[in-house]
């Protein structure tokens, strides 16, 4: 089995990982295990937390729905390595002055202290780093460069030990391994973390004689969003849009000069039109909507598998129309459209119909319910529907489909005023609007510009698919129960 290790560095990196988790759930990466490792100095960062929530939901969903091997939905598993905080070893020191013990530098190495003062302003030296690197690559770089993988690997039970040991074991077992890093180069954590960690990983495996056997790729995010001064308190050191271009230039220059031989393929993804996010300096409030740039970044994993190892190359992709995003703009557009459209249609069908129907069945009794829902008979025993054993799987799938639809809705609304790829704006607040909000029509969900006939539109509805579920003999190994129902819906929809 193929092993994919994704490392999300910083908030944007975490959001790319979120996209890759959803793509993996839909079977985009084929039969592979997705190992997820997040790097963030801000342990309460909203983007990282949301990715963790969606990862945990996906893992739970996989555990409940993995039995059906013929279905692409939840066909391959995950491994969660957790969130590594590069400041974890200096939790009691909250700023650069403390971490590098400036008073001691004054005594022991005045020249070094002068260099420290030259590189970092007093505000930067004193800025509290419990909210991350504040969009400042120099702060991130000095922290990240302290990292020593050999030391980290020797910390028993630590995240790096698990990750590196697994990669080495996979290579030893002859598995196909790909390590893919995600992060922005215009902020703090990603810009400093991507080159540093990639170099450390490459050198680590070079020393072990394993480097030539796996892909080490990265999706590097160029500026695609902006924001004004943070609204939270009197911050003096914070991420500022005006520095993004400078940060990007410096990071790309660094990559050009130093990354040759480190990466196999680097994907540069950005967007000319910047999405405006509300600004917060770290913390749980720093939770930005998903963006289609992150979807592109996550799709790069698949492309990276097909690229040669050991020939550093850079890939970029562009849209055909600067005013919008079409399915044709995605790499392997037909394949991606089939997967993503199926995922959205499935999640919509489940959350806004089948899930509510199962609640209704439990309430009014299986036999009465089945009179009005012939599909129910195909999957459940009327005398003993066994609600208890299905309850957990239903709860898990509800959570997953809700998370996925929220993500897809944010992707669709991430460019200008209109909707891209999907039409989900009409769902409103998905978190709040599911209850008693039955939906039926699937014909308007996918924004593909295809003109359907009136008959096609009329037939693209859940009532039709329910009749297909009832009438067709499915070729799945687990055709019954809630698990069978979900896979059969995914199969036909």
């Amino acid at each position, binding site marked *: 089995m193929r092993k994919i290790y994704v490392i999300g560095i910083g908030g944007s990196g975490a959001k790319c990982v979120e996209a890759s988790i959803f793509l993996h759930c839909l079977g985009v990466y084929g039969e592979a295990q997705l190992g997820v490792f997040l790097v963030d100095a801000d342990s309460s960062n909203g983007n990282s937390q949301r990715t963790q929530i969606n990862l945990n939901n996906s893992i739970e969903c996989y555990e409940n729905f993995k039995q059906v091997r013929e279905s692409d939905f939840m066909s391959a598993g995950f491994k969660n390595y957790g969130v590594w905080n590069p400041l974890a070893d200096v939790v009691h020191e909250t700023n650069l002055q403390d971490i590098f013990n400036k008073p001691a530098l004054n005594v022991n190495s005045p020249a070094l202290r002068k260099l420290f003062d030259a590189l970092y302003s007093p505000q930067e030296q004193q800025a509290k780093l419990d909210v991350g690197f504040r969009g400042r690559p120099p702060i991130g770089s000095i922290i990240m460069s302290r990292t020593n993988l050999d030391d980290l690997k020797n910390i028993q039970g630590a995240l790096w030990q698990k990750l590196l040991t697994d990669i080495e074991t996979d290579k030893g077992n002859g598995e196909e391994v790909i390590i893919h890093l995600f992060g922005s180069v215009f902020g703090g954590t990603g810009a400093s973390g991507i080159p540093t960690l990639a170099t450390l990983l490459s050198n680590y495996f070079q020393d072990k004689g394993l480097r030539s056997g796996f892909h080490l790729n990265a999706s590097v995010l160029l500026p695609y969003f902006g924001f004004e001064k943070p609204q939270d308190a009197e911050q003096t050191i914070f991420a500022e849009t005006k520095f993004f271009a400078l940060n990007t230039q410096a990071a790309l220059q660094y990559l050009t000069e130093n990354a040759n031989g480190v990466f196999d393929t680097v994907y540069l993804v950005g967007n000319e039109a910047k999405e405006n996010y509300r600004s917060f300096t770290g913390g749980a409030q720093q939770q930005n909507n998903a963006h289609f740039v992150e979807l592109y970044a996550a799709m790069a994993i698949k492309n990276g598998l097909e690229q040669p190892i050991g020939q550093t190359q850079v890939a970029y992709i562009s849209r055909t129309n600067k005013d919008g995003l079409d399915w044709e703009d995605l790499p392997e557009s037909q394949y991606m459209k089939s997967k993503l459209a199926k995922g959205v249609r499935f999640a919509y069908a489940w959350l806004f*119909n089948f899930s*509510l*129907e199962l609640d*209704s*069945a439990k309430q*009014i009794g299986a036999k*009465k*319910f*089945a*009179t*009005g*829902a*012939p599909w*129910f*008979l195909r999957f459940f025993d009327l005398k003993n529907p066994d609600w208890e054993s299905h309850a957990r799987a239903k709860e898990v799938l509800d959570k997953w489909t809700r998370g996925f639809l929220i993500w897809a809705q944010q992707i669709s609304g991430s460019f200008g005023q209109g909707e891209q790829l999907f039409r989900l704006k009409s769902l409103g607040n998905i978190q709040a609007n599911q209850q008693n909000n*039955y*939906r*039926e029509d699937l014909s308007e969900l996918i924004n593909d510009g295809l003109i359907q006939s009136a008959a096609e539109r*009329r037939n693209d*509805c*859940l*009532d*039709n698919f*329910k*009749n297909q579920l*009832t*009438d067709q003999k499915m070729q799945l190994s687990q055709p019954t129960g809630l698990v069978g129902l979900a896979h059969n819906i995914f199969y036909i929809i």
Partner: protein
Amino acid sequence: MRAKNFITLITTLGLASIFVLVLQPHIFQEPMIPLSMSSRDLDTWWSNIFSPTTNIIFVAGLVTTLIWFIKATTSKYTKSSDVLGARLLWWGIFWGYLLLSFIAFAGLNYFANNSNKPIKGIFEASLWSAPFLLLDVILLFWLPTASSTPKTLRYIPPFSMSLRKLIGD
């Protein structure tokens, strides 16, 4: 509509038609039931009352079944509770059909009884024929709808779930 539903519909309507149009006249005209009326009165009762009534029931049966099938084929439902609401429609059609059959039968009986030449033994014949007319209604409406209603309304006719299981659907 699936081919299987269509074949079942044709088969059940064919069986019902054979009973209503072939077996039932045979039962009354032989007669295979103990009627005390003379053969002349029986012929008169048959041609003036029972035969027109069964013809009306037969045509009405085909029409009501057609209405139900059009409804079942063209309607779309979002949720089970909406589908369950269609039970009211099925029973409405059924009772309407039964009422029409009763009115036709009672009306023809009334006019025959009040004509210049009343038919002797008409009451006895009517008593015997009433259950058969009810059976006609059941065979011409319930049987086709319960066995072959397509799509989402398939289990709305009463006992359709058991019947369809019995015939392997």
